[in-house]
């Protein structure tokens, strides 16, 4: 064990205390992520409530969220939509659950 000291910043506190429910594994997140980003692109961030397990997983898993952001940007670009605005939609969809 090292002498490393930890900084419990607001972001770290959010990561530690974000509500992880409903349960969804990383593999299941991968299986659904294409549908989820298209739902957000087609219907806006409010539609995330229709896939609550995806929303909770992306709020709690930094790796899956990083990959979801890229997929969203690519799918938005294919539709001629603004990728930055699309990513804001993803962030907004998770805002109630906090960021990891």
């Amino acid at each position, binding site marked *: *064990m*090292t*002498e*490393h*000291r*930890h*900084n*419990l910043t*607001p972001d*770290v*506190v*959010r*990561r*530690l*205390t*974000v*509500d*992880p429910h409903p*349960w969804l*594994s*990383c*593999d299941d997140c*991968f299986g659904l*992520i*294409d*549908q989820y*980003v*298209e739902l957000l*692109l087609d219907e*806006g*961030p*409010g*539609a995330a409530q229709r896939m609550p397990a995806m929303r909770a997983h992306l*709020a*709690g*898993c*930094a*790796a899956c969220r*990083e*990959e979801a952001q*890229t*997929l969203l*940007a*690519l*799918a*938005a*670009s*294919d*539709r*001629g*939509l*603004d*990728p930055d*605005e*699309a990513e804001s*939609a993803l962030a*907004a969809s998770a805002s*109630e*659950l*906090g960021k990891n």
Partner: protein
Amino acid sequence: MTAISRSAGSHPVPVIETDDWVARLSTPGPGRDAALRELHALLLRAARHQVSRMTALVSALGAERIDEIVNQSADEAMVALLGKLSTFEGRSRFTTWAYKFAVLHAAVEVRRHAWVGREIALEQSVEPCSSGPTPEDYSEAAALSAAITTAIDTVLTMHQRQIVIAVLIDDVPIDILAERLGSSRNALYKTLHDARDALRAQLIATGHLSSAQSTGWPR
């Protein structure tokens, strides 16, 4: 519902029907060869996009190595995708479904390169920094930090503490830690899930978090 704006001067990619992609990729012949080339180009684009978003992690690698990562990721994604082609149900555009394979492989590969040679210390307790919040939010923030530190020490198992500290506090990527521990991303995420449940239950019991709150400070 909030509509997402169309990019200025954008040209949406024409939609090739899903059935067409699957049929072309499944039917031997020149049509399949062409479809494979088109698919590989899509995967390259997705892999390059993912790598380009991780500049902080790839800045030390040369352009040649970055190009290798992009190509390797696209190749691996191609194999993975073709192995799953029969499972595609058309619930999204085929291109969106395809991109995710390249995005996953590229992200994992970049993180792997970034963590080569870096030691990961599995710590068993949280030692808060001496520099705390400002006087204005000292009371609430300090109380919550102290409660979280106590909860980590008292309600989590040693394994949960190690994973929580590494992934959620020290920012070790979950797939890298899984690889080092001979575990899986799924298994470590389940550990985080159970640990968050335990932490939240303790913080609710001590009055530091309400059951309706999705996260702690700031409220």
